């Protein structure tokens, strides 16, 4: 079976690269969340975002 991935949407995958590999965005202490300095909860947030993003793109790819 030939599959046709909707590769245009793959450009969205640039977001996690920009969001997590550009330290000036997140290298700060404030605002804290539940005791976690910004840098830490921001990066944890991205773990969820990349999972959701992959899930969405998978959905687009297969429908």
């Amino acid at each position, binding site marked *: 079976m*030939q*599959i046709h991935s909707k590769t245009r949407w793959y450009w969205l995958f640039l977001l996690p690269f920009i969001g997590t*590999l550009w330290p000036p965005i997140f*290298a700060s202490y404030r605002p804290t969340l539940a005791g976690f*300095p910004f*840098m830490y909860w921001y990066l944890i947030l991205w773990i*969820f975002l990349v999972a959701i*993003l*992959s899930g969405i793109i998978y959905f687009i790819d297969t429908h």
Partner: protein
Amino acid sequence: MYWSAFIVFLILFVLVTILGFYAARWHHGDMDLIEEWGLAGRRFGTFVTWFLLGGDLYTAYTFIAVPALVYGAGAFGFFAVPYTIVVFPIMYIVMPRLWRVSKQRNYVTAADFVRGRFDSSLLALAVALTGILATMPYIALQLTGIQAVLTAMGLSGHGIMKDLPLIIAFVILAAYTYTSGLRAPALTAILKDLLIYVTVIVACIAIPMQLGGYGHIFHVAAAALPAKKGSLILSPKLFSAFATLALGSAFALLLYPHAVTGSLGAKSGRTIQRNAALLPLYSLALTFIALLGYMAIAAGIHTTDTNLVVPLLFLKTLPTWFAGFAFGAIAIGALVPAAIMAIAAANLFTRNIYREYFAAKTGRNREAQVAKIVGMIVIIGALFFIVVIPLQYAIYFQTLGGIWILQTVPAIMFGLYTRWFHRWALLLGWLVGMVVGTGMAAAESFKTSLYPLHFGHSVILAYAGIWAIIANIVVTVVLTLIFNGMRVSNGQDGTLAEDYTTEPVEGAAAR
């Protein structure tokens, strides 16, 4: 000697041994075929692949080394978080293509693909040797995870007794890897990760409760880190190092032979893509494991052997029997990736060295038998590495290994999309990358993978692997233009465009 911890540890170890041998009967297949022994017949679904890749990419060494780095350096150690975030988009886009073309053309290794795509056994040999060289120290370092927990439990004898538990563990590992192939780490990975998740969840709730909460832990760490020349928030002079190390490590991770083997063991390209969405759960676990480094600071753990940071923290803050449970998780967490790495190295040796250069002469195809024996030799070799050679060298080699693996990106990853690059240009580019990367690491006495490059008056500190891959790509592009201009033969492409997009029908029975 912590007996209750040791008994729990021993029970878990026996359990994983039984599972390892039982795995040979799981999803019954003909173990005399390399695709069955070395890739488990490419039949693992989403669930098993999740455990297999998770167990593969997040190793015992990670669990020991990342908190150790965070304990010593603070924020810089958290490069592991962006690293294990950006790895998933790369996996989602690239690995299904590799899976599909490998399925169509019966490739077992990445070097098989390179050979078919570029019609160059020499380029395939370069890829295979890079993979084997990078994998050996990685297996050896898994042993340090086991060593660390054994030492923490007070199991440290003298002379041969010192290494005896390690030798027993690895002989058993070699035996069930021989009999069960990739099925063994796949099945034991399920047990391993259940143990790891229980450990992480308990540790990250119970320990902060004792230490006064996460806010307090961060406060104590912020105050203590400057004395170690670290910091709680990444300092601007480390921005480029942090980002390049994360990016380079992410690209390298997927091209390690064990990651390729784990991916090719899946039953479809879609299975890998589903996993790209589900695997970040491991990154979340890794983040909290990294935070154990700060918890150790807050708990007042003082040790010069940073490998002991996590084991000592567990013994100090958790009930002894539960520390044993956690140690079992770490030790099994070493065995799973060690087995996959040994199988991956054996596949490379068998397919791209033995079959290519030796089997043609004997005229016999005994791939699976050769792979099984090589797998054992690799495990015993890694054991020898760690028992005889000082640990520091294994760490140096591991650092180099990441830089080296990254140099196979043009041949493998770019090769999945285009055949524009000339095979000889790829080979020479690889060679330049290897020399530049190794030279930079040597200039830093192998103590760090970071290299400060001078541009006029400014200095950029970055991962040596990134500098090396830039040199690699520039050389590859320039030489491709030259070779194509001179009309040097570029061989025959052994793959078709549709090979990269052909997916087995979901639900169809595996061959």
